[in-house]
């Protein structure tokens, strides 16, 4: 395939986001505000990490990439292409919840678009993932609406969280200048600009129901850089922790 490099680039971006956010979500296990949310975040963490694994396997099996464990657990920070949104520490539940809402809606429009991808492995994966994402977005929408309609403090926290994450979330849709045109021309996916647009259509009704004010999207500056290997200060320590045991002996079986 002529567009292998472009495909790889897209897969790595998607998979790295899922792995890093899955890692962050998993940090809620045992520490949620109510036990039910502990369980929910930890369940979504498994799905996210599962998606990352599936994508790294496509990379390995269909495009000659490295073994998924080695690719995820040994790679250098610079070689990661995750967005800044997923790298940030969990903070409090309001931030984590808003990130979950904005990311999972973005993930949903992305996978929906991949159902018609010219790249067959994307079609298969998106069918599998669709059912899971339905519950993730149901969960996110319900909590955003619930907490935004539950008194002053809770509302203020939700609005602040939205203000603080919207530009970061817009950074999910950072296109790769050298590959974007190929991927669109080859009908692999509709491109970041189109997904960005679909995503806004998707989040807007939920925010309206929540009485939250979506900042004027024409005035925000999306936080880019992650797709080019420029990361927040939080990624390196996260990767070090993630690989701590694996890197004791990368040849051993764990």
């Amino acid at each position, binding site marked *: 395939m002529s567009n292998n490099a472009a495909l790889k680039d897209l897969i790595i971006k998607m998979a790295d986001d899922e792995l890093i956010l899955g*890692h962050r979500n*998993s*940090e809620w*296990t*045992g*520490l*949620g*505000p*109510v*036990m*039910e*949310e*502990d*369980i929910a975040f*930890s*369940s979504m*963490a*498994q799905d996210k*990490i*599962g998606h*990352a*694994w599936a994508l790294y396997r496509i990379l390995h099996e269909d495009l000659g990439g490295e073994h*998924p*464990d080695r690719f*995820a*657990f040994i790679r250098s920070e610079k070689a990661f292409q995750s967005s800044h949104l997923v790298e940030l520490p969990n903070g*409090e*539940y309001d931030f984590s919840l808003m990130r979950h809402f904005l990311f999972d809606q973005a993930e949903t429009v992305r996978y929906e678009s991949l159902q018609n991808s010219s790249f067959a492995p994307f079609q298969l994966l998106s069918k599998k993932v669709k059912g899971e994402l339905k519950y993730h977005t149901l969960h996110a929408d319900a909590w955003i609406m*619930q*907490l935004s*309609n*539950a*008194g*002053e*403090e*809770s*509302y*203020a*926290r939700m609005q602040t969280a939205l203000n603080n994450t919207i530009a970061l979330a817009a950074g999910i849709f950072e296109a790769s200048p050298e590959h974007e045109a190929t991927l669109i021309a080859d009908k692999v996916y509709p491109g970041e600009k189109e997904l960005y647009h679909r995503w806004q259509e998707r989040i807007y009704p939920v925010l309206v129901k929540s*009485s939250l004010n979506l900042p004027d999207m024409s005035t925000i500056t999306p936080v880019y850089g992650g797709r080019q290997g420029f990361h927040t200060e939080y990624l390196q320590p*996260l990767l070090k*922790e*993630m690989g*701590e*045991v*694996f890197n*004791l*002996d990368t040849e*051993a*079986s*764990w």
Partner: protein
Amino acid sequence: MYGGGYIFDEPNGKQLREEQQHDEPEKLAAFEERIARGEKIEPGDWMPVEYRRQLIRLIEQHAHSEVIGALPEGTWITRAPGFKRKLALIAKVQDEIGHGQLLYNAAETLGKSREAMINDMLSGKSKYSNVFNYPAETWADVTVIGFLIDAAAIVNQVANAKGSYGPYCRALERICYEESFHLKQGHDAFIELAAGTPAQRDMVQDALNRWWQPIMHFFGPPDKSSQHSEKLMQWKVKMASNDEMRNQFLESYVPKIWELGLTLPDPNLRKNADTGRWEYSDPDWDEFFRVINGGGPCNEERLRVRKWAEEQGRWVRKALMNPGQKRAMPVA
């Protein structure tokens, strides 16, 4: 996970008034007959005051153990080596929290709210299994916990699942079903290290050495020094004695450990061919009581983390109490 049984009686439990301490003899007799016939007691049924008190204590401690038990392993989720182990560990720890939830629900049927139970845990009034007051220092510790502590918990819980209180038994049945998967994943990860490189074997041997005493402590003090047992056995609150369960655990798991060429740090550990029972050095019971009373290596840390989670989440719980409450609109 984890029953880890019958370890503690609230020292500062509320004293009942004189008339509350005595159940009507006819009702008590009918209750005891039902239990003797193997019937389950359900939430609305009459039950002796002491039966209710002991069950709340037991189920609540079990629930706390699940929730606190998620912490030592939970810290390794982010460090688990490879996708397979990472996913299995998250799923496992998530199950433990789910067990806590089931058990709090079961205990609530006896009249104590989840909030009250959690508050009693945070204040130190209500205990959890002692074994979680030890640190999980390396990845090998996670495999030892997943294999042997889950195994020990299963021995305890399978016994309790045959008890007399319906909601607890039903919760335990489901818990045991999930625990058997945990045991498999723990065993699998344990064997991977035991059959691995010399460094991996050293890791797992070191973890075994450190965890052996807490595991021996897990089933509680020896029968000869155990108090309030007889009545609880008759009421089928307590289904097997501490020594009985300990012996059952040793019988099933010591050979599996030895088969892998690993050792256990007790020169007197052996099966007596004549009695068919396992013999072992008495673990340090002073240490056991010291840890229960707050002197273990991780008691403070475990409660600090739980308190942090409770405090951080307070606004969410408060908001949940105000469903549909719109924010106050500014007047002008």
